[in-house]
């Protein structure tokens, strides 16, 4: 194995995974940007969509498109339900965060109880599972299709944030919620809409990516670790830097997969986060983090 035999696989998989990681993470950083709350149930919502599709499409034989629509609606309802239930009782960020994590665990145990925890389940894909060759590298058509859809969705989200008047309100809320409130922006409404969009995006990521893996009650961990790593590397709340940060994570993981013959992708993400905290605590986007770095 030499450098050139690895060059194309690393570039192609780095780009494809990077696009998907950006799709997984953008909602997480958006919500943090406007609400300063880290949505720890984020990964669990990714898992919820997958289990809902299994329930509707596999267990009840509903058409896949109908199952997807039902799953997205239910995931958004569950995600908003969790967020606003906690908000009703507390605004303490620590209690908020821990309770969100507990909801993620609760969902894990519920799915494990309802669907069985030992065997991974398979859900149908919108795309064919065949592989095609790009520069001599075998690429699964589902992965390629999900990456193309990710580009499209990332473009729409960027347009929404940077080119529309509502996007300007989102950026104002992220910059300074108090000033935004003073100039007449309904920040509560902004948070509700951004939260709904973030859940929609993570649901779509689940629909695109989960058919390439198995549905298990602990599957929420990987998307959560990726989203967290991307948000730290990009700079907390700096959603415009989520895309380059996603590529840093994906390339590091793909390179490690070719060099180390074990599944160490989560460890690589964790190590990059640690390195960034030591060397670039503000992330590549230069987040204002004086309050959390000692």
């Amino acid at each position, binding site marked *: 194995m030499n450098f050139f035999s690895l060059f194309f696989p690393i570039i192609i998989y780095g780009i494809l995974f990077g696009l998907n990681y950006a799709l997984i993470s953008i909602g997480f950083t958006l919500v943090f940007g406007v609400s300063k709350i880290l949505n720890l149930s984020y990964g669990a919502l990714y898992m919820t969509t997958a289990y809902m599709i299994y329930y509707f499409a596999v267990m009840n034989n509903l058409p896949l498109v109908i199952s997807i629509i039902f799953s997205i609606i239910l995931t958004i309802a569950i995600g908003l339900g969790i967020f606003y239930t*906690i908000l009703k009782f507390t605004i303490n960020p620590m209690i908020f*965060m821990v309770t969100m994590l507990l909801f993620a665990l609760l969902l894990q*145990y519920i799915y494990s*109880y309802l669907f069985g925890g030992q065997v991974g389940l398979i859900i149908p894909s919108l795309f064919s599972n065949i592989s095609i060759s790009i520069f001599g590298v075998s690429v699964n058509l589902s992965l390629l299709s999900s990456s193309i859809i990710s580009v499209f969705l990332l473009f729409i989200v960027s347009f929404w944030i940077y080119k529309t008047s509502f996007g300007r309100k989102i950026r104002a809320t992220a910059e300074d919620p108090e000033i935004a409130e003073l100039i007449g922006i309904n920040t509560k409404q902004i948070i509700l809409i951004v939260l709904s969009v973030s859940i929609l995006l993570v649901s779509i990521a689940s629909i695109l990516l989960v058919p390439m893996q198995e549905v298990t009650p602990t599957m929420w961990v990987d998307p959560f670790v990726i989203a*967290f790593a991307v948000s730290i590397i990009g700079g*907390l709340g700096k959603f415009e830097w989520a895309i380059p940060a996603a590529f840093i994570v994906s390339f590091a993981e793909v390179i490690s997969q070719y060099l180390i013959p074990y599944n160490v992708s989560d460890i690589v993400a964790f190590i990059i986060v640690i390195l960034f905290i030591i060397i670039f605590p503000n992330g590549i986007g230069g987040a204002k983090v004086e309050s*959390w770095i000692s």
Partner: protein
Amino acid sequence: MNLGYLKSKGFILSLLIILITVILSFVINSPYLTLSFLISDIFIIMAVGWDFSSGTTNYINFGISFFFGIGALFTGFFYYSFHLTIPLLITQAFLISSFSGFLITIVTLKVRGVFFTLLSLLLPLIGTDFILAFWTVLKMPTIGYYGLPSLSNSLQISLIYISIFLIVIITLIYALYSGHIGLILKGIGDDEEAMNAQGINTFWYKVLIFSISMGIVGIAGSLYAFSTSFAGIDTFGLEFLLFPMIIAIFGGKGKILGSIPAGYIIIILSQYLQLYVGQLTLISFAAFAIILFLFFPKGISRWFS
């Protein structure tokens, strides 16, 4: 050294409760009850170990199940690879968990508040991958280690040993609380900036406290491995964060006295629920933890005070 804590109401009551569990295990002579007490003691060790660092400093560390797993797994590793005796195995669990805690906190303590908590949470989440990769490199059984020795052939004698461990750890924590470190801990929890302004370098105190704390959690992991005769990747599971956290919070932040009755109530309840409703136990405890966090964050300690 100030030994006044040995006469404090909280300390004496803690010892009394532990003693009652040992007496009950002999009087009732039910293996299931004795095992429940034994598991409770292990979770209480975890809870007080966690509370010692996180409850007082306000640096909430979610990484405890990682150090619990390290304590358990390395007990299996050293038992099968080097045939160490039980006291040495428990000592290595403390040392390896403390050292891992030291290495990790030296980096993660650079961040504060929710970000420290989040970073610590990643530890158990990546723990399984970490151990699988590390163990494969060492050519060790990734499934875990079966057939570990028990502390004693009699379950009741094992309970006595573990109760002694619990008492020693509580005494150690009380001693630390009532000395110089206790003052620093309270200072960090109240106003860390003010401590730094007085010229006290809180960073190294935090590293020391977290290293000791994670070492205690590692001991709990090792004792758990002896009690269940198994040390595997399961010990990295978030259940081993959920239960100590419920115990410590139900018992009251920074209150050892509260953790002891809370530990026995919660673990015995969970053991018996497991017997009758199986997997619904975890669902009910996660739901219970949510209610606890939203309605009773101060825990039951205020009922004792």
